[in-house]
């Protein structure tokens, strides 16, 4: 809140007429004209909002009918039964995890040199930096699933296309994050290393990389978690993993099996989140203790 002008400890016996308009202008903000303008803007905003809902196909009857059908579908999901296909599904979950793991690993490794090339304080050549950063923006613009259909067309159906898709998409994102982490490093440490007479490479090796290493590990683990989720749907376009069975059973309206698959995805994601969270804490905490 704004403070008024300094007030005397005791009010004078006869207070002079105070200029409230100048002292508290916010009390006089809502004039009639302003209210009318606000009302008009709200009206236009509301109209645009409703128009957008119309474009997207919202409608009371569609929502009601859809909810009823949704209720039916959910009802059909219980009780979940795998129809003896559980080993198949578990293998597919393993495939999903393998895709996420390898894709993230490749991306994490590739993003280090690319990130170094994209960081302002490491890469002195402007055009190279620009090229790395802009191409990472372009690759990031397409979702991993889009990369997956491209790679399915090139290397054929199977988890390998999924690994490539995750690797390409995440290399771009991790490159950006790595470059930003490098740019946020502490200058004093680099200066300290340089003061010992170290060359450029040694400064990067001993003054910069130790600072970003925990960040990079944390990012990689975080992306692994998120990639388990994305890898579980890559199968929808034929790029391996549990998504293939999920799509297939849904097309067949085999809802009881769908609920088994969704349950398996939930369990796998929860396990990976737990493990990765523990690893991340250990890595970052361990590093922090050593720095102190």
């Amino acid at each position: 809140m704004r403070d008024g002008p300094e007030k005397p400890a005791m009010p004078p016996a006869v207070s002079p007429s105070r200029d409230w308009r100048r002292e508290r202008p916010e009390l006089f903000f809502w004039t009639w004209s302003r209210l009318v303008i606000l009302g008009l803007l709200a009206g236009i905003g509301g109209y645009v909002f409703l128009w957008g809902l119309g474009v997207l196909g919202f409608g009371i009857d569609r929502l009601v009918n859809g909810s009823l059908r949704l209720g039916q579908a959910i009802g059909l999901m219980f009780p979940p039964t795998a129809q003896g296909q559980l080993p198949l599904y578990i293998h597919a979950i393993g495939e999903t995890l393998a895709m996420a793991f390898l894709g993230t690993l490749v991306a994490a490794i590739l993003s280090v040199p690319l990130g170094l090339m994209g960081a302002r304080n490491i890469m002195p050549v402007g055009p190279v930096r620009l090229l790395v950063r802009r191409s990472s923006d372009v690759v990031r613009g397409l979702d991993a699933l889009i990369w997956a259909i491209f790679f399915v067309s090139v290397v054929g159906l199977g988890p390998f296309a999924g690994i490539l898709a995750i690797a390409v998409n995440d290399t771009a994102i991790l490159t950006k994050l790595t470059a930003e982490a490098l740019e946020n490093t502490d200058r004093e440490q680099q200066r300290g290393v340089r003061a010992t007479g170290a060359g450029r490479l040694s400064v990067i090796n001993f003054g910069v990389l130790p600072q970003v290493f925990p960040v990079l590990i944390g990012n990689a683990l975080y992306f692994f978690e998120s990639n388990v989720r994305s890898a579980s749907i890559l199968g929808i376009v034929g790029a391996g993993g549990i998504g293939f069975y999920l799509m297939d059973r849904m097309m067949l309206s085999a809802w009881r099996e769908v609920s088994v698959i969704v349950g398996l995805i939930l369990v796998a994601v929860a396990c990976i989140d737990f493990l990765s969270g523990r690893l991340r804490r250990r890595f970052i905490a361990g590093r922090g203790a050593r720095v102190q």
Partner: protein
Amino acid sequence: MSVRDEHWTAPAQELSLARRKQIFAEAYRRERLRTWRIWLVGGGVFVVMVIAAADIGEVDLVHLWDRLPRFRSYFGRMVPDISLESLWPDLQRWFRRGWVWLRALWETVLIALYATSFGCIAAYFVSFLAADNLSPHPAVRFVARRTLEFARTIPELVYAIIFVFSFGIGPLAGVLALALHSFGAVGKLFADVAENCDREQIRGVRATGANWMQTMIYGATPQLGPDFLSYGLYRLEINVRAASVLGFVGAGGIGQELYNAIKTFRLTDASAISLMLIAAVIAVDMLSSWLRGRVIGKGRLSEA
């Protein structure tokens, strides 16, 4: 008492220099061994994991090497024939369905916008129930947290398939799917932010006799608003990318066009759509980061 402890506890002058050197060397060796062991075991587990994953993931480097020319020819076929003499007609041919794609792209952005708004509005209400310090009851908090967790663990495309089945083909299913997933993802972030809010303001509002709802509106919302908006904008960026693939399962947006173009090997169409999509994504990113900068700037100002 181990050698290492002796090194630290014994007064330095009581030990000869040679003995102290020996103690140091021994401690150093043990430390080195310990580090080596950790790296060896960790590295071994890691290598085994990589090999197992490569086996399950059907990674075949020989196959990849054989297919390398196909990469070049495939992505090469995405580049249209454009010559400088007939630049404009060539571009027109490349983007011959440009208006259709632009409409689909607009639909994609609209899906992302509405889904983000709906998801964030729902997340706003639930986040207060899920925050440790604001929740009216631990049981409510538990239920809210688990609900958010469930909503964000299921990928939006899975929701989209189920919703396409029940709400029919079209962007409606996409909006609902994306909104539900965003609700879970953003709700968790909102709740985490809300847990770090300033208690004094909330206590102050409660002291005036406000009920729980009023406390949240007048005590918590003003201080959390900028953070919430910033997370919402960040989610919008993610959702534009997510909305671009909803069309793969018939849930609206440009994904349908892109999927058909790639599946029928109309590769120049695919590259044109991809370029438009990338341009839209980058435009939304820039707009959102500009807005976020403004919102956070204002937030800082109100704190000062």
